[in-house]
């Protein structure tokens, strides 16, 4: 167990309060369209619920993912998620990336192109991880 954890003491952050205001406003008009946005991808698509592979905290609590790390363009059907591994040498980055990708693929309309990135400079083998996530995706 001693050698098992890559980051033994991750910093745990408080989760921000959910914004519930929107949920009510959206159902008033039958014809209005709620576009898919940042928060929806982040919040409603349950990125929050993916757990860190080695700790019982969600990715949000560990600030691996934040609301700002999600970029959505509904008209162009494109999502880009940039995540920040907790430590530079985190070998779990690939797994996290894949988790996020699968989750999004299952939860977004098929027209979306999903792009997962490791935040620049936060991982030792950034490029390698990138390749690995993408290649697994292409299978």
């Amino acid at each position, binding site marked *: 167990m001693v050698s098992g954890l890559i980051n033994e003491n991750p910093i*745990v*952050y408080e989760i921000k309060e959910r914004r519930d205001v929107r*949920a009510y406003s*959206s159902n008033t008009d*039958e014809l209005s*369209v709620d576009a*898919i946005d940042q928060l*929806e991808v982040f919040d*409603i698509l349950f990125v929050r619920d993916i757990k860190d592979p080695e700790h019982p905290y969600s990715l949000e609590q560990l600030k691996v993912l934040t609301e700002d790390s999600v970029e959505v363009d509904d008209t162009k059907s494109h999502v880009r998620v940039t995540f920040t591994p907790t430590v530079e040498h985190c070998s779990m980055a690939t797994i996290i990336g894949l988790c996020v990708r699968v989750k999004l693929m299952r939860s977004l*309309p098929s027209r979306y192109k999903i792009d997962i990135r490791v935040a620049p400079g936060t991982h030792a083998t950034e490029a390698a991880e990138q390749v690995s996530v993408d290649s697994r995706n292409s299978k």
Partner: protein
Amino acid sequence: MRIWRRSGNMGDRSKETGKEFSFGKNGNRGNQQPARLGPKDKKISNMRGPNPPKTKLRNVGPMRGLVFGPISGESGLSARGKRLRVEKENVGRPGGVFAGDGELDRNVKNSGHVSATGSRISPCSQLKATFTTTSSILRSINLWVDSLKCLKDCAVNYGVSRMKKHYKDLWPALKDALYASTKTDLSFGLESLTSPGIEMGEIHREAVNLLQRLVKQDISFLGLVVEDIRVNMVFDTISRYLRYEEMLDTSKLEVLVVSQILSVSARSSVESCNIIFQTFFFRLMNTLGIVEKTSTGDLVHNENSTVSTRLYHGGLHLCIELLTTSKDLIPSSEECTSTPESAQQSWCSIVSRFSASLIEAFTSAVQSSNDDCSADAYLGVKGLLAMGMFRGGSSPVSRSEFEKILTTLTSIITAKSAKTVKWELALKALVCMGSFIDRYSESEKAMSYMAIVVENLVSLVRSSHCSLPHPMILEATSEVCSTRPTYVEKMVEGFEEAFCSSFSDFCVSLGPMTLDRKVFTIVSVSISNKQGIESFLISNYYLENTCQVNGNFKSIENCSQLLECVTNKLLPRLTEIDGLEKSLVNFAISMWNQIESSIVFSYDFKGREFVEAAMKTMGEIVGVASVDSQNSIIQKVYNVISSSTLPAMESIPLTVAALEGASPKASIPDVKSLVHLFLVSFLKGYIPAAQALGSMVNKLGTGLEEACDTIFHESSASGSSIPSDDSSKTIGGSEALLSKICLGFYGSLDLQTHAITGLAWIGKGLLMRGDKRVGEIALVLMECLKSTNSSGNALHPSAMKHAADAFLTLMSDSEVCLNRKFHAVIRPLYKQRFFSITVPILESLIVNSQTPLSRTMLHVALAHVVSNVPVTVILDNTKKLLPVILEGLSVLSVDSVHKETLFSLLLVLSGTLTDIKGQQSVSDNAHRIIECLVKLTSYPHLMVVRETAIQCLATLLELPHGRIYPFRREVLQAVTKALDDPKRRVREEAIKCRQAW
């Protein structure tokens, strides 16, 4: 135990230290050890003299023979006693952000010990530790609160003599706590008029409790407070700023905290109050310019100092806080009358010396305030309120002064022509004072209150010619007067008078018209049969045909506002105020008197408002009144109507309806003509008439047979009684039975649809009382749904639609009538009964239906029936119903008109899916259900339908895997499509559902 023996020759100090150690160590194992040591400890500690706190630091190091004593080289670390041992388990993971560093946790332990071990341990070192942590290290709220609580326990347990030594340390710590926990934003809002006006955090509350405890216990603690430099500084601070907003945050804080400190210490006991007042009140008065320093240095009360009064907000606030707290002390001092008055009440005399000037100052603060600055008004009103709330005969405020306060507040209310903060504040203050007088039953003050406030306001209501807008007067009056029953009486009297005068005013200004009676006959119906709304609509119906517009609408507007006020403000509080019912019944009767004596009435939009208000008020009054008062009102109504010159045909039936509603046992003289009237009206398309008829057949006692005969078997049109109207003319012949009209044998389409709707309401009335004639009605309605009627004529689609909707009327709970509020007769399980009658017939009709339209309509009707019946009934019949429901869903999804019906039917389906009872048949029909639901996931007209359909699909997963697996692909496809739904909620459900499948 060894420790004690060994340290015996080391003198008091080391004993103390040793104790310290064993104590700290015990901490790690919980509290068992101290419990055992108890008696001995106590003994030792009793022998011990005062302990200079510092000694322990010196002696800890060299201790020899401690079981868990410090090892060499660590003596420095151990200087704090417990540190050595506690640290290891409390430090936590370095870098982890979960709060608690070692310091904090340790202190919790400390606090726990002190309170747990109580008086056995020397308070000295523990207290010391707690102070230092309280004031400097700790910033965690819980710990702070715990420390303060623990200190309070110390104060209780250790007693004065022991605590005294620590006052010097205690006071700064306490002060720090207060300063740190007070926020600088003082609220000048309405709601804080009766509360302290600042937010009380937990720390703050504990700190205040501690302070109060300390002062109560030992008056000498107050010496520290009084001499405190910061407290004294504040008087300079307040004179530096005129307005609260101008103050720096730090000075705001100073003022607020000092006012808290002073008021809390003053509240603790009469003595402390005396001291505080003696020390500070003069200075405060001086700052405010009420007292002036003469050349000789004496303070002289400046009697006519209105000009020189300086209204520093800070000072006013301080002053108000002191006055508010001191007023709580009066009853306690009255209780112990044995103590000499003079010593007890010196603060009282101080206040009474200045009361006149203070009131003056507050008044000027209120009056000088302009609308954009609420602080002036707030402080002024609050000050006046504080001055007015002194209790009992020993109050420092004399009666004349009290009256002056009341006059000032009342004048604010009456003078303002717009609703401002000041107005609201003054009103609230008056209400506060009113309820305060009532609570402590102060007869003298009540008299002043009555004379000044109540009579003034009531006379304003009566006159109705003043600058103040009418609604505001009414609001003020009703608020103020509801504080005491006698005021209420007075007020209702005033209202009555006001109503009468403005109503007659209104009537005089009109030309003669004959409609008044009719309107008020209808009002009478509302009174007595409690179907106010229906009858109101009837009245509108009549009025719309015949009214003309002119007259003095201001007075009628006043009337309606007055009635509204009665309805909204007074009626809900009926149970709270004794005697209100009686006055209100009187009010209702005098309304009738007024109506009786007046002979004109006009109607337009404003008139309608009035009628509406009148109906509502009357209805509600009668609704809450006792049977006797109901009867008396009805008697009045009857008299008015019977003496009237209106055509008998129109007045009598309405009177009958009136009698019928209020007292079910009353005999009904002329059901026939009443029924006629209603029939005629609803055939003209006036639905409320149908509703009224429905509730009439619902409630009728003996007259039911007759009424039903009239409705079903006699001609609904008897020539002369029908007003000349296109649709009713066509009824013509005497054989026009209602059912035939429904089927379109006579008259136009309009007539037919009206008849169908009317029939539905009548049917509902019968259905709810469990009459079997509803079966006939259902048959007629179903006949209408067929594409062709018995004689081969094709039915119009709109008639069919109405007939289908009639089933909704029959089954649903109505808001407007025939519900519990309107005292309908409701038999249990009536919906189930109707369900079992109609569903089989509808099913067979659906099977045999000839045209798509009729099929759709039959489905709509069935959907109405099915969706309004309790779910349990459906569950008992799932096997039979499920195919029909599914077919209904697919039929209804074609047209967007039926979207609501579709949704309710879908809800029924979802109910069967989730229940264990329906499981078997759901499983049997799985393929059809899934097919249907998949279709509905893309239903474009209603978002909730899509959402529910997807939810249902997710629920279906509970079925055996083998049963649903074949549809997996189909479902996933549909749900994936739904992922791109325009609505977020649908997408959410789709994600969940997809995940699940």
